[in-house]
């Protein structure tokens, strides 16, 4: 079982406070309103999928959680505390995989992960063990001493994933984390996320365009459209709301975002 090779997060204390609370967050870039009063929460032990068409505001919402963009309105709380109160403490609790991870290509994989562990103040003995486990689990073992500039996209994504997980985060903010992963590694990652959420109480905010994946692993999904929350709930609840009980999430998503019937588009493109 591949899961056995991977380390788990530290046990979490129980409580009813959501790990992450986003309330009325707005953000604009010039005349473009990226987020408009967006609210949602991510309780401990849940995987919440953030879905939406390109430009819907998913990445901006995730960056706001990290404090990488400053909302013009609203609040973001981590364990009930505003993330802007003490940003370094908040960041210590979060593991983040950006949409297109930009790694330091002049470092080796091992040097990069060592660097990340230093940034999070991870004990050397602990980091050695955790990094080794992750390298084996994600089949990067044997490549850790090579410069990242020579890595494939999938290998870079694995390094970014390990970097997000290595310091026992309580909240994972993962922007399309399965991009470029081979089927085995994608499976390992999905199982790992499920395991961390169920057994360790880690909260996961997860964005993807592959709706089958969202349907398979998310406890709840939030559909963002034009910077607002269009719908939120379990897949079953969204199916019921859109009148598509029994349909896949893809049909639900396309219906809710107003792009259900694509036959004319396809026919035009095929000509």
């Amino acid at each position, binding site marked *: 079982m591949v899961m056995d090779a991977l380390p788990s997060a530290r046990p979490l204390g129980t409580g009813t406070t959501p790990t992450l609370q986003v309330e009325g967050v707005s953000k604009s870039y010039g005349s473009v309103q990226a987020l408009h009063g967006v609210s949602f929460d991510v309780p401990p032990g849940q995987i919440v999928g953030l879905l939406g068409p390109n430009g819907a505001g998913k990445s901006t919402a995730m960056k706001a959680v990290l404090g*990488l963009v400053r909302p013009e309105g609203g609040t973001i709380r981590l364990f009930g505390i505003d993330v802007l109160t003490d940003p370094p403490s908040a960041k210590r609790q979060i593991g983040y995989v950006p949409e297109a991870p930009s*790694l330091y290509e002049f470092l080796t994989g091992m040097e990069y992960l060592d660097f990340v562990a230093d940034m999070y103040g991870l004990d050397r003995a602990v980091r050695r063990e955790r990094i080794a486990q992750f390298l084996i689990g994600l089949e990067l073992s044997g490549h850790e*001493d090579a410069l990242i500039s020579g890595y494939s996209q999938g290998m870079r994504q694995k390094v970014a994933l390990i970097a997000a997980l290595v310091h026992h985060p309580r909240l994972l903010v993962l922007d399309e984390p399965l991009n470029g992963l081979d089927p085995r590694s994608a499976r390992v990652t999905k199982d790992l996320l499920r395991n961390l959420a169920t057994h360790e109480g880690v909260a996961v905010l997860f964005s993807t365009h592959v709706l089958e994946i969202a349907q398979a692993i998310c406890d709840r999904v939030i559909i963002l459209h034009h910077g607002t929350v269009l719908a939120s709930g379990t897949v079953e609840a969204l199916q019921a709301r859109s009148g598509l009980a029994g349909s896949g999430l893809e049909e639900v998503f396309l219906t809710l975002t107003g792009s259900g019937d694509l036959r004319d588009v396809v026919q035009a493109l095929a000509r």
Partner: protein
Amino acid sequence: MDLHRVRRLATVLIASQLRSGRADSNPKSLFGQPVFIALVDVGLFLVAAAAGFAAVSAVRSPSAPPSSGTLLAAVANSVLPFLPLVGVGVVLVAGMMFELTTTTRFALSDAANWLPLGPAEYVAASTAAIAYTYSPAVALALGALFPVAVSVGQTPEFLLAAALSLLALVEGGFLIEMVRSVSQRAGTLAVGRGGRATVVVRAVLLLVVILALQLAFNPVLLYGFVERLRSAALVIAIVPFLWGTQALLELQAGQPAVAAGFALAEAGFAVLLLAIAARLRVRYWVPTSAEIRISSGDIARGHPWLAALGLNAPEAAVVSKDLRGLVRRREMLPALVVPFVLVVLLLVEGRSIGSFALVIWLGWVAGFFSLFLGAISVGQERRALQFLLATPIGPTGLFRAKVAALLIPTALTATVMAVAVGLYFGLGVEVLLGLVLLSLACAALLGLWGLAFAARFSDFQDRPRPQFLRPSAMLAATGSGMAILFSVVVPGAFALVGGGATLPALLVAALVALVFGGLAIFWARSGFVRLFRELPF
């Protein structure tokens, strides 16, 4: 070779260069169009020509001394033949700094790798783009010389110089393409599955190539070289890059047939360079990235020497990462060449330099190098800044780390340079010690000044040729930095070797350094706080 394809690709490359620093601006504006450079060429030519005509009129005015007339002829005779070399020199000196900074990742993902283009077509297009980009320098020189040449009856010589200068721009572009191909190979498959030594060898090789070309075509050295070679016809005849110069010298000497021969030979040499550059691209260009192993085998044992400097673990990690990047990143290598070029210039041309000028020169080199490194120290993070800002390091920690990562190499360089040059010129122990301290002060002050600009005006765009700092900010940092530097280094030199009024001069230097150093620290720190407020991209 399909010239239409070459022209289309060249146009795209020029537009890419023009727009690369202005991601947020309108690409349809005039400033983003290739024709903009042509307009700059024409404008510079006209402005320089107007200034030249004014100067010629002044020299020829009845009130001017009788010997003024011969001055114009002397300028035309000595400068016109030199112009083609300016073309090659400009492209190489500037090109090495900017063209070779193309990151390996972008070089590998360049669309030219998979478009149906032949190697000669790509080389021709890229060279045309490079030559066109740097043409304003030649336009300026031609504009200034045009009135002089006309006034002394050397219009044919001027026209030939103009043609050969443009040809030289192209030759410089071909040389850049050769180095680009070879260095790309050095960055990938040529080293195969190498170890730590691979990285060192690659860095040293590139440094040597860049240093050699920078020195070989440095205008200061070239001018002296040409002057010495005026009578050494045999040497000129066997160095193809000098055939253009020889053609002009022959024309000035009334030998049009010989001049035409040399000019044609120069053109033939350009064609040969194109063929070689295309061949090198076929042989060495590799659109794949190789695995380079650095066999550490385990996580590091920490950074005890950085901890001894008072840095905590995250700060030390950033310093260690930056120092590795300095020697491993291809786009950083041209920056490392700067102090070498300037010191070698001093050693080659400055044997008769006085001790006062020597101190100023060294302080300037230490300060300039440090300013440059400081100015690019934040922008070099590029998109990975997103990761840094997501970690718990905080603005103060990152500021401390960047200061350390900047001052460690610059202080080391300043010390080594001061000691080496001081010993070479036989300075006394006291002066040598003072020189080291002054160089260190200049390095620290200018490094912090550059960092202050970097904290506020860095360019984090992941583009083929990273700029690290916005061009306007780089200009402002350089201009203001040089003014501050000279207000410290001149009184400092006066205190060291001026022979009198040592204490007041020292106090002035120290006061200026403290005021601007404090200002730079304050400005840089607040810039880092602002940086953490929101991701700047």
